[in-house]
């Protein structure tokens, strides 16, 4: 039993700890062994917490996450533990304070194992833009894990931790979750505090969990959600509970525009199969039409680059970190594009227009959510791409994230759950709900995972 402790999800690990079947130290040790064995091959962790075992010894297992080992994406500030956002600019940066998410996790008793790799500054969907080398996909190390929370997704799938925290600006949780075959949840914008998260695109950044099951994602979300006096954009309240199974009959819409022409038939088939599962579970399923997701790519690119150009201005190397010469290609490209789109004369043409289209996208979703309760589709056009796929492709992320950008721009909630394999690599099903629709998103994800076992598959690591 104890040799496979790292396989456990949060529910099982907590039950084991509280039932006295094993100690937090054993659980943490099991994950650390996994990291020791496989991190050199996968490169999921950038920095390890040297005190993890001591903290495990002192863990209060009666706390909600007491003694549970977990990983944190390296753009969340951790007091005293190096935080780089995978950029050499912050190579030596030791934060003076904890992000709200980290503070809440510590209070809930979680044991932080370390910080996970990501695209530098979260700029990307491959983890290839990390200044510390790419993370590789645990299913096939010739492939990418997705990004930007690629390190967190790979760490969970490689059983290096019980769960991980990531952040999503447009797909950065759901897309790597899909490529690595785990559950990734993006809450409504403002549901979880951004305080202490190195800002990428402030108006869409949303922290969220990467987990082995939808139940775990709901557990973590309920612990992290809520108004934060340090983040003016957080929304009050939590979601109450996951909707009960015997509640109202849910109407599911399959977004036909999200079954892209360039998409592999096998992917489309898996989405239709997943819709069939939901139908058998007693939900109604119908095809619906949404605005062409290509429009979202344009809007997202402009808004995100603009905000990036401003958010990265503070990294001047005067007070902390290294100087600007350490910025990578992708960051420089985004700063330049964002500076351009905000320049006088261009602002109306780009940023203002993007905001107008953003409003139209929100209205389009509002219309869809009058017709159905939730929208489903593929998380990503296909399975994980090969290492090197993002190189020299500035719009790589946008094209891979095309199916998650619209809901991000609209601030919606959504989840990606594994729904099958193509070419031996996992495919993700995304379930999108309206703002504040966490209760029904989780209900559908839970019911789906009670009917299938795609989320239980794990790669054999070599």
């Amino acid at each position, binding site marked *: 039993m104890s040799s496979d402790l790292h396989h456990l999800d949060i529910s099982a690990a907590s039950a084991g700890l509280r039932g006295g079947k094993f100690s937090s130290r054993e659980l943490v040790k099991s994950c650390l062994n996994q990291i020791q064995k496989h991190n050199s091959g996968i490169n999921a962790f950038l920095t390890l917490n040297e005190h993890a075992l001591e903290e495990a010894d002192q863990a209060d297992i009666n706390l909600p996450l007491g003694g549970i080992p977990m990983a944190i994406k390296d753009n*969340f*500030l951790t007091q005293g533990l190096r*935080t780089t*956002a995978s950029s050499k600019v*912050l190579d030596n*940066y030791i*934060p*003076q*304070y904890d*992000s709200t998410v980290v503070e809440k996790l510590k209070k809930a008793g979680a044991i932080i194992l370390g910080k996970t790799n990501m695209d530098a500054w979260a700029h990307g969907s491959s983890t290839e833009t990390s200044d510390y080398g790419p993370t590789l996909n645990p299913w096939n190390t010739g492939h990418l894990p997705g990004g930007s929370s690629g390190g967190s997704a790979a760490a969970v799938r490689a059983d290096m931790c019980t769960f991980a925290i990531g952040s999503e600006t447009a797909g950065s949780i759901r897309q790597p979750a899909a490529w690595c075959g785990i559950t990734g949840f993006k809450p409504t914008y403002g549901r979880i505090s*951004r*305080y*202490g*998260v*190195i*800002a990428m*695109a*402030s*108006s869409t950044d949303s922290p969220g969990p990467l987990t082995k099951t939808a139940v775990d994602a709901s557990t973590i979300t309920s612990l992290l959600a809520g108004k934060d*006096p*340090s*983040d*003016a*954009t957080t929304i009050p309240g939590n979601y109450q509970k996951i909707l009960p199974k015997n509640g109202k009959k849910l109407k599911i819409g399959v977004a036909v525009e999200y079954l892209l022409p360039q998409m592999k038939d096998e992917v489309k088939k898996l989405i239709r199969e997943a819709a069939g599962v939901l139908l058998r579970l007693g939900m109604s399923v119908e095809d619906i039409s949404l605005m062409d997701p290509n429009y979202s790519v344009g809007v997202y690119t402009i808004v995100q680059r*603009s*905000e990036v*150009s*401003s958010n*990265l*201005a*503070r*990294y*001047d190397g*005067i*007070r*902390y970190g290294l100087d600007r010469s350490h910025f990578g290609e992708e960051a420089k490209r985004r700063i330049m594009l964002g*500076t351009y789109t*905000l*320049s*006088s004369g261009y*602002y109306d043409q780009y*940023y203002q227009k993007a905001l107008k289209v953003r409003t139209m996208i929100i209205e389009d979703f509002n219309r869809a959510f009058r017709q159905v309760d939730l929208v489903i589709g593929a998380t990503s056009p296909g399975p994980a791409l090969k290492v090197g796929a993002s190189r020299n492709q500035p719009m790589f992320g946008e094209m891979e994230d095309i199916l998650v950008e619209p809901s991000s721009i609209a601030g919606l909630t959504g989840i990606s759950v594994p729904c099958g394999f193509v070419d031996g690599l996992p495919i993700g099903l995304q379930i999108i709900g309206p703002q504040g629709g966490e209760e029904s998103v989780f209900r559908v994800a839970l019911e789906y995972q009670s009917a299938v076992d795609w989320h239980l598959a794990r790669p054999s690591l070599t």
Partner: protein
Amino acid sequence: MKYVPVLGFEVHIELATKSKMFCGCPADHFGKSPNTQTCPVCLGLPGALPVPNSRAIEWCIKLGLALNCEVNLFSKFDRKNYFYPDLPKGYQISQYDLPFCKQGFLDLSSGKRIQITRVHMEEDTGKLQHAVINDGEKVTLVDFNRSGVPLVEVVTEPDFSNTQETSEFLKELQQIVRVLKISSADMEKGSMRLEANISVRPENQSGLPEYKVEIKNVNSFRFIKKAVEFEILRQTRILESGASPVQETRGFNESKGETFSQRTKEEADDYRYFPEPDIPPFSFEVDKIKEWQSQLPVLPIQNRLELMEKYGLSASNAYIISSNDTMRTIFIRAAEIGEIAAKTLADFLVNKKYGTRFPDSPSELIKLVKSANSVQSEESVLLPVVSEIIAQNPEAVASFKSGKQQSIGFLIGQVRRRLPDADPSATQKLIMDNLSGKSS
């Protein structure tokens, strides 16, 4: 050709709130040891987020209301992007197209109206200190205690014609801020900062000139007046010589009494403003604005109007008396007693006839005015002047003697020009006595 100045102001006022604009650090930074009042937010550390100070916003809007502004019911913050070592985030949180308040005005004592373009909220920057350390190494140090202190910016239209108007406006603004108790508006401490925008155009030409000179970092009313006057003259001379002044920022050398070039602007700055995504926009209820309006204290202009309308004072006397709370209170209470005409009381106060010690009470003021006036009704004071006036005005004397009674009024007037406080009836009696030969 005659040239006239085109003159407007930008005034920054640091609010005296307990905490800073976007974090919990104390806002009172004056004289505190460097970098002792900072936190991740006002240091611009990674991940830190601004949370707006609602008291500061209330105060900004109240100042706008006191300046007769319209309040934008929908408003927001914007980022003003630029690099400077005292600006830790690489942008300043300010307001761009939707300031909290817009389109107000302030009336001068002459009745001239100065238009207020906008009153908006922003955050102050840190402070640079140039120093020499250790072995003579020259360094620039940054103190972030001031970083993030709430700052209100009041922008006027270029409506001023001269420095008399600017001085009155600026003093009035300072008074309003103090009456509202939102800032000490102390210029020496930098809690009120003035920036003048000056250009000069030919009188017969309308529209704005193609250049604009900003005068910055002048920290007293007296010096800004001197700087503006110097600048008007300097620019006029350049224009008269056929050249055009350059667009630039100038400082003021207090000892030389001259402005000097600090930075020329080849092009307009591009601050790449965009809506601050970390702070949701604001919607204000009309009732809330009405409530704030109703909470405004009595403003200097209202005091002035009261003095003019109720007590019949001239605009300039009303301005002087209302500028001083003690003077105003004593004046009103003494006038209410009714023993002495309000105008006489006002003249007495404005001309400082009380001497070196200001009267403690209305009754003391009345006593002082009476005794002062009684001096002027004393023959020993009046007679020499009366005799002299009679001697100097033989025509009026002749006219009086020929029966034109109104000529006596002219003579009394002449005496009172010399002795403004001469008691009219005592003077008349002395003149009559003199002309009828009763006097010795």
